């Protein structure tokens, strides 16, 4: 799509794009190129010598059980977060859609967690599940489960999943509600006249119509779980116990800044870049089918 009207000026357009172009080049294009470049280099531990190693960093990664572990952890983590956050949000959205009076009130009460930083969300749940003083750990002990995310990897994983999903419910709720409200009432009424009960109506009419929203949210939630949850992990479990909660983004940071293995960290960055680009392209394709730009 292009404008019919244009202004003519020799220098002005360059001046206007310059700030963004400069920032993009310095803080985006250049570092991204560096990441690509470093991913094919290896530095000795003292940072004195750098050698070109081709795809060795990548080969090493895929042979490294620790890395493969973190891939597995990431997959489990993101699927759990997406499922929990989307399931809960869908339930709440369906209910809010049924409410005639007070639906804006519910909306207000349900969307605010979006504003909470992931790191803060992590700290809150970390506190609630604290094995010695946390109220939820206490409640679990009362029903016979000895919760301890400091030593039990599964507990730690559940903790970061809950903390990450908690915040994302709001977001999904908003989009599901908008999707539900876009379903034509006449369609539901027609189904009711055809004799379909509420549950049947939901699964045969409403849910299929919601599928674009669901797919879109799935991509968004996976991207969120991949990247934005760094704060949740870092502020609470620090990837532990062991490697139980070391998601890929956390490992990039850990290997690069703590382990100072720049080549490996850069290679991991590149893998993440490829992942996120594929996800984005997937989403773009979907958008293109939905609306014409």
């Amino acid at each position, binding site marked *: *799509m292009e*404008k*019919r*009207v*244009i*202004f003519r000026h020799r220098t*002005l*357009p360059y001046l*206007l*794009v310059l*700030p*963004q*172009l400069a920032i*993009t080049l*310095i*803080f*985006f294009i250049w*570092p991204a190129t*560096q*990441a690509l470049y470093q991913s094919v280099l290896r530095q000795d531990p003292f940072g004195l010598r750098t050698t070109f190693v081709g795809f060795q960093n990548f080969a090493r990664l895929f042979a490294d059980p620790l890395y493969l572990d973190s891939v597995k952890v990431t997959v489990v983590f993101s699927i759990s977060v997406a499922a929990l956050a989307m399931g*809960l949000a869908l*339930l709440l959205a369906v209910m*809010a859609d049924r409410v005639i009076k007070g639906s804006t009130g*519910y909306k*207000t009460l*349900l*969307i*605010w967690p*979006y*504003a*909470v*930083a992931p790191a*803060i969300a992590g*700290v809150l749940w970390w*506190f609630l599940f604290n094995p010695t*003083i*946390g109220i939820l750990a*206490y409640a679990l002990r009362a029903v016979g489960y000895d919760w301890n995310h400091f030593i039990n990897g599964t507990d730690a994983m559940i903790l970061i999943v809950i903390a990450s999903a*908690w915040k994302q*419910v709001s977001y999904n709720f*908003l*989009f599901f509600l908008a999707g539900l409200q876009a379903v034509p009432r006449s369609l539901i009424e027609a189904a*009711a006249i055809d004799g379909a009960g509420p549950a049947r109506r939901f699964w045969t009419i409403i849910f299929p119509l919601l599928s674009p929203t669901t797919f*879109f949210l799935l991509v968004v939630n996976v*991207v969120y779980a991949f*990247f934005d949850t*760094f*704060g949740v992990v*870092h*502020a609470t479990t620090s990837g532990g116990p062991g490697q139980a909660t070391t998601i890929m*983004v956390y490992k*990039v*940071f850990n290997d690069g*800044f703590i382990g100072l293995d720049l080549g490996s960290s*850069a290679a991991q*960055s590149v893998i*993440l870049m490829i992942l996120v680009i594929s996800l*984005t392209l997937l989403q773009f394709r979907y958008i293109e089918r939905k*609306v014409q*730009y």
Partner: protein
Amino acid sequence: MVERRPITTFITHAVLLLGVLILAFPIWVTFVASTHAPSALASGVVPLWPGDLFLENYSLALGKGLAASGGVPVGRMLFNSLIMALAIAIGKIAISLIAAYAIVYFRFPFRMLCFWTIFVTLMLPVEVRILPTFEVVAQLGMLNSYVGLSVPLIASATATFLFRQFFLTVPDELAEAARIDGAGPLRFFRDILLPLSRTNIAALFVILFIYGWNQYLWPLLITTDESFYTIVMGIQRMVTVADAEPQWHLVMATAMLAMLPPVVVVVAMQRLFVKGLVETEK
């Protein structure tokens, strides 16, 4: 809706209320914990009703801070977060507006190159190129500075993309009428396009403010000087203390303070927030 029996209405409200309670529960516990003495928290289990140390705990956190985070007063961190969030929101909106304007309303050599250079950033979040970005900022001597905290995070095209989409929907005739009225490109931008973009700017501001306020990894990396700590990352310093239980009552007071500004923004500007969310994700 079609069927509406009292029982289903009751269930509907019950589920929603339960949802609200589940979402709000952590905040309630946080608030309660922030009003008690450390002893009340350390002994066994957290109480569920507020204590009487609200003023004491909050003024202590705000004014003095915690030793664990270098003794920086939380007030200082709040200020840093505010600067960072505002700089990111305002900076990004400003450069995006003019860049989108140039790309939509002008034809110039290398226009498409500029377009793609800017828009490729839509693809990659800061987390995946964090190390080299850190190195660039370090080389530029921007560690421990507000510029270093905010400017690198402005390098993303979401806002530019949004404004471009919006500008494309502005009728061509408006620009033509303005030209006939004698308005040049800058005048048209200021008198017509900016006022028309008002709601978009406001919606984007809400989203970017929250985005900036909630930044974690970036400030964590580039601030070693405590006086530049932002509140969201500062909390991590307070929690991860070696060989001791964190001072939970103050941590929780800090958490409340860290959540308050963005939550207030979202609730007070709900309509703009929803608009911004929907449009930036399109």
